[in-house]
């Protein structure tokens, strides 16, 4: 039981690093993909947060990004191994097009996460650890403190620039 909890926490850290790296690589904090993402960014900034971090959080809300890719890839690996993860990547790609997102952060994140999750299943992790881990990872960004999360993302974005 304790082992499973530690696996979930480790999976949360791995998922967090994976999706934040891919999202920042694909410049999600730069501009809002749709007008709604910019509106969310403005509200987060008005609440004391940073605009660049808020823009990335708005983009995460408005279209499946690398975090959604990681979650669905983990679900895919749990259901059907690597083919399941790649099927999830295809569904994220379709989801991006439905949501008027011209980017490839979600699809790239899903493909990368498929292989990362599969590799960890070979060393004792379960794919379910990554499903719960990714939900914890998104909670830390979107669900605890928008002010602190957006400032942290803005700091990482400045490093990228």
């Amino acid at each position, binding site marked *: 039981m304790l082992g499973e909890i530690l696996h979930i926490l480790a999976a949360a850290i791995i998922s967090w690093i994976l999706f934040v790296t891919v999202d920042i690589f694909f410049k999600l904090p730069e501009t809002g993909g749709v007008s709604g993402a910019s509106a969310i960014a403005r*509200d987060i900034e008005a*609440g004391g947060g940073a605009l660049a971090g808020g823009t990335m959080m708005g983009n995460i809300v408005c279209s499946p990004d690398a975090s959604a890719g990681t*979650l669905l890839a983990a679900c895919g690996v749990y259901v059907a191994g690597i083919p399941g993860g790649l099927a999830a990547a295809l569904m994220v790609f379709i*989801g991006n097009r439905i949501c008027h997102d011209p980017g490839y952060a979600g699809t790239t994140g899903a493909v990368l996460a498929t292989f990362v999750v599969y590799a960890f299943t070979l060393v004792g992790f379960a794919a379910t650890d990554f499903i719960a881990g990714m939900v914890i990872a998104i*909670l830390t960004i979107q669900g605890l403190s928008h002010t602190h999360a957006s400032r942290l993302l803005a700091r990482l974005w400045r490093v990228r620039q």
Partner: protein
Amino acid sequence: MIALYVVAAIAVFAAIRAIIEKNTGRKLPYANVLNFAVAGALVLLLDHPLSLVAAAAYFVGSTLESNAIASTYAGGVKR
């Protein structure tokens, strides 16, 4: 089994935060966490290959709804 409880607890927490938050722009990220948790819980609960399709369909659909609410909140299409 613990994974399911973790995901369910986060879903309830996110739902409460989304209800309490008054500002629409800051409410949507909490709803986003709820969508993640529900999509994860779907796959953990349904032991069937098509649960992946159900989770992806739910997730993309709810994301599109958030997108539509946020864009309407931002002022909608300018004519």
